[in-house]
C-alpha cells in the first residue's frame, strides 16, 4: 500500500462509510476539523466515533446526527466548559441517542497502543476504586502471571479509519508531525486505513531522523488542506483560536443557533477553503 493524493471530498467518500468506527485524533493540537466537516457535509451517519477528547468537531458531528456511539475519555470544551451538543445527546437523546464507551485518558491511551501493536488488549494500573468499570463492561481485568496482581485491561481500539491533520507530507506521502502529538500516531497505526490532511506538500521533509513521522506505506490517502486544523492549531503554521472556542459555547448551547451556524458554515460551504472564507466574512 502506498499513499494516494486525493481531494478531501474523495478521501472521505472512499474511506469513511456509514456505520464505521472512525477516529479523528490530535490532542488539542492538529485536530482534523476540515475532515470532520466533510464527514458532516457527506451526511455520514451511525458512526462509532473514537477520540480521547471529543472537542468542538465531535460536538458538531454529534449535533448533526453523525454518531451512534462515542468512545472517549474527556468530553468538554477545554478551558471553557461543556460540549453542549454532546450533553444534549446524552441527557436528552437529541438528535439521537448516543451510546457511551467511557474511559480515562490512561485507559484509552493503553487501548490505542494495544491497537497499534495489534494486541487484543492493553494493560494498566488504572480505574482502581472508581465507578467507571461498573458502567463500562469493556473495562475488565487481567492477572499478572508473575505476581498474581490484578491489573486493569482495556480492549484494543482498531478504528476502521483514522483521520489526522499534520504539518507536512512529501511527494511520496510520508507524513511529518511536530509539537503536541497526543495519541495521534498510535491511533494512526491502529487503524485499518489512514487519511491525513496536511498544511503543506513539500518536495523533501526536513531531515530529522528521530522525528515523528508516518511512513507513506502506512498512509491510505493524503489530502492537501491548508488550515485544516482551524480553530485548533498547527504548530509553526497558525495558533489555536481560543476566542473561537469561547464563542462556540454560545453557538452550541441552543439547538437552533447550532443548526443555523452549521447550515451556513459547514453544509453550505463547498469545502474547507469556503468554510474559512465564511468565517472571514463573519469577522469582517
Amino acid at each position: 500500500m502506498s499513499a494516494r493524493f486525493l481531494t478531501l471530498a474523495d478521501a472521505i467518500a472512499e474511506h469513511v462509510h456509514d456505520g464505521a468506527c472512525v477516529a479523528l485524533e490530535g490532542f488539542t493540537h492538529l485536530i482534523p476539523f476540515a475532515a470532520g466537516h466533510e464527514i458532516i457535509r457527506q451526511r455520514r451517519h451511525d458512526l462509532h466515533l473514537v477520540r480521547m477528547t471529543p472537542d468542538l468537531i465531535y460536538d458538531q458531528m454529534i449535533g448533526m446526527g453523525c454518531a451512534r456511539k462515542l468512545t472517549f475519555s474527556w468530553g468538554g470544551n477545554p478551558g471553557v466548559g461543556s460540549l453542549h451538543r454532546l450533553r444534549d445527546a446524552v441527557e436528552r437523546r437529541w438528535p439521537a441517542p448516543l451510546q457511551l464507551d467511557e474511559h480515562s485518558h490512561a485507559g484509552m491511551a493503553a487501548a490505542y497502543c494495544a491497537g497499534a501493536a495489534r494486541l487484543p488488549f492493553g494493560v494498566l494500573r488504572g480505574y482502581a476504586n472508581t465507578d467507571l468499570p461498573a458502567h463500562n463492561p469493556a473495562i475488565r481485568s487481567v492477572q499478572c502471571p508473575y505476581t498474581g496482581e490484578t491489573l486493569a485491561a482495556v480492549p484494543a481500539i482498531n478504528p476502521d479509519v483514522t483521520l489526522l491533520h499534520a504539518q507536512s507530507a512529501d511527494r511520496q506521502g510520508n507524513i511529518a508531525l511536530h509539537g503536541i502529538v497526543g495519541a495521534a500516531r498510535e491511533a494512526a497505526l491502529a487503524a485499518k486505513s489512514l487519511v491525513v490532511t496536511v498544511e503543506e506538500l513539500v518536495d523533501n521533509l526536513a531531515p530529522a531522523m528521530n522525528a515523528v513521522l508516518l511512513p507513506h506505506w502506512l498512509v491510505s490517502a493524503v489530502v492537501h488542506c491548508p488550515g485544516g486544523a482551524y480553530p485548533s492549531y498547527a504548530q509553526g503554521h497558525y495558533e489555536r483560536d481560543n476566542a473561537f472556542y469561547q464563542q462556540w459555547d454560545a453557538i452550541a448551547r441552543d439547538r437552533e443557533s447550532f443548526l443555523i451556524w452549521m447550515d451556513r458554515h459547514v453544509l453550505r460551504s463547498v469545502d474547507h477553503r469556503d468554510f474559512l472564507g465564511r468565517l472571514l466574512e463573519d469577522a469582517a
Partner: protein
Amino acid sequence: MTICTREEWMTIAASRLLWDGCVCFVGIGLPSAACNLARLTHAPEIVLVYESGTLGTRPDVLPLSIGDGELARTATCVVPLPEIFSYYLQAGRVDVGFLGAAQIDRYGNLNSTVIGSYDTPHTRLPGAGGAPEIATHARETFVMLKATPRSFVAELDFRTTAGYLQGSGARGRSGAPGGGPRSVITDFGLLKPHPDTQELQLAALFSGVGVEEARAAVGWPLALAAHVGIVDPPEARELEILRALHARTRQAHARPVAIPL
C-alpha cells in the same frame, strides 16, 4: 493586608504548597495558575508536566487548553501522550498531581462524570480525563475547588476518582501506590485528612475567615483539625506576579488569531 479575590488567594495558597524541583502534573485552570505562580516565585526549578505530553514546560502566559502551542514551545521536550501516562505517571515519576472536580466527599473522593444517574443524567460532566490515574499514582494530590454544599457533598453521584475511599486506611489497603489527597485548597482555606480516619478536616482558614463560613460551605459536618492554622494573605509580590501573569494571559488570548486562509 492586600485586597484580593478569593480565587487569587486560593491560587496563592496552592502555589505555596509546592516546592522547588517538585515534579508536578498540572491541570488547566486554577492548578495551572498556581503551578506557574510557584515557578515565577519560590520554585523556579519546578518541573511542570501537562498531560498533552509537554515536559518541563515554562509558559509565559497561561494556556487556555491543556495543549496550547505555548506549552510545546517552552517545554524541555514533548512526548506522545501514552508515554506521559505510562512512563511518567504510572511509573511513579510525579510528586504532585493537581485535581479539580464537580463534587468532593469527606474522604476526598471526586466526581467529574455526572450529576444524577449515569444512564439518565441530570447533568453530564466532561468525565475522567487523567484524574483517576493521577490520583492513583502521584505521590500526593492537591484538590482545588470552590466550596458550596453542592460541590462538597455527603455523597457523590459518581466516583470518578478515588481519594481515601471509606477512610480509616481503606486507600492503603487497596494497594494504591500514591498517597492520596493531602490538601484540598478551597476558597476559605485548606482541608487536610485526619491522620487516622482520613476524613477531611478544616486545617487552615484564610486570615479573617471564620469557621462558620467554612461549615456553611461544606455539605457534611466539617470537623476541625487538632490545630486550625491561618493562611497568610497574599504578599504584595505574590499578587503582583500573579496579576501580571493573568494580564499577560488575557492580552495574549485577546489577540485575534488570523483565520488561516
